[in-house]
């Protein structure tokens, strides 16, 4: 049985990682929601909840 990884046609048809990312709307949706959720919302809330309460 031929090794599919050595088939030159497969090499030609391999989609670059960046293109795979750009052509997957749901992966982009996940990243586009996760980034601001982590860096803006969650980090921001952590900052607020760690402010010490006046005794």
């Amino acid at each position, binding site marked *: 049985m031929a090794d599919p990884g050595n088939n030159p046609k497969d090499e030609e048809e391999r989609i670059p990682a960046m293109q795979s990312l*750009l052509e997957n709307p*749901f992966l982009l*949706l996940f990243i*586009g929601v996760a*980034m*601001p*959720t982590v*860096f803006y919302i969650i980090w921001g809330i952590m900052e607020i909840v760690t402010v010490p309460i006046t005794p």
Partner: protein
Amino acid sequence: MANFRLCPDSGLFFDRNAESLMKVNAVAAAVSLLVAGLLALGVALTRWPAVHLLPAEQFYMFLTAHGLNALIFWIIFFEIAILYFASSTLLRCRLAAPRWAWLGFALMLIGAITTNVAIFQGNSSVMMTSYVPMQAAPHFYLGLILFAVGALIGCFVFFGTLVVAKNERTYEGSIPLVTFGAMTAAIIAVFTIASGAIILIPTFLWSIGYIGYIDPEMYRVIWWGMGHSSQQINVAAHVSVWYLVAGLVFGARPMSEKVSRFAFLLYIFFLQLASAHHILVDPGISSEWKIFNTSYAMYLAVLASMVHGLTVPGSMEVAQRLKGYNHGLFEWLRKAPWSNPVFSSTFISIIIFGFIGGITGVVMGTEQINLIIHNTIYVPAHFHATVAVGTTLTFMGLTYYLIPVLFRRQMILPGLARWQPYLFGAGMTALILFMMGAGTMGVARRSADMTFAGAALTYEYPGMAFTMMGLAGIGAVLAVIGGGAYLLVTVGSLVFGKKLDPSAGFLQSFGVPLSRGAYTAQPEILPMAAPVEEYGSAGHFEAPGTFALALVLLISFVVYYFINWKYLASVWPLS
């Protein structure tokens, strides 16, 4: 089933359901703009010191309603129409789940009406931000929640339509750039609406007494995840429309699809983090959070805007040069169709968005120099440059294109339409520049009376600040007249414009489909729409005029940035 209509003038496809939904969303947007414009007049004539039209209570009510109608309802109704256009029309496919799309529209409409009713009942003058512990009537929040849920449904109908198009192989290769840009807007919208849900649902429960306390700082941080990101939807949407107009008016393709897509990708990653610049002077949040979000991350989104600012006019220049307009740096621009409001709206929007909106945005996003203008009237100056000119004028230009193509009516009053972008653009630019000047002198935003008459604590602004606010008022009146001209031409065209299809009657202008005979199962593909319906670059990079304009922008930015640092040093003496 005969569900597609081919526009013989543009070559664009319209799915029967998508067409009706685009129309009703666009009409609802126009009604919201009408309300926003009338209220803008009241706000501007109150802030004009010599006129000072409204008493304080009415001023704050007008300002609350103006903000929501202009920044949320007008824009997002129109953006939902754009999402359906960018998916169903540009991918030549049926709209996914049209019943859900109608449900979404109904929720948005009910939400917008409910919130407006709450404001005009007089006990919800809490500004668009509705900062706690100020409390509005429960239906103020409920209306916003319903509107947001409706818009979220619209976003998922868009994503569903992308899936339909891919499964039914209605396009070859990758989705077109305009659709990719609209997808960027939809992604930002999902985060925006999620942030809104996280904070507005508890606030609604607080307003009806189920929750006892909402932390004001927590509210501010999460609310701005919605408040500012909602304006980033606009940026992604109007940049997509810029590429669309370049393709439709000039037959231009992007200079480089890859570069433009990468710029949209930077928006997806970083644009929403710019919300943090609203929190720059808040206590309790570390400088690390502020600087990471507003500087490092936001600058990558600014980089993306600069890429679009280069590639959109660049693609127009390349297309013009291929037509033979090669003399000197700017023949391509001189010979551009300046009397076509679709183009003039777009180009004015690009210039004002880049030169004023972009530069002021970076100034406001820098922690130190933000202190000079934080919460002054400079802030509305910035977002009138980005939203009122950047987004609104772009959408106005697109409407002129859509009247014959989507609504199948000939535009009335073409002379007025020709002048309208200049009138609105000039009025807005005057308003923006004079508000920037007054804001730099410290004039507060959201203040009914800059003389502080009767107040316990007062402050006397320099005389020039009063002059600037008066001149800003004149600019605002011009802009309102320009906005009125837009509504007169567009709504008038829907009602009185010559029919381009025999069945394009009065009701058809407001969402009822054309007669069955106007639709076929599989229309032929015409070549006119190819530049906006296909993936592909122009393959040419010869755009020296655009590069010269980009250098002027860069120099303007550097000079203005350092002027602000110098000004900070003078207003904040440390020695």
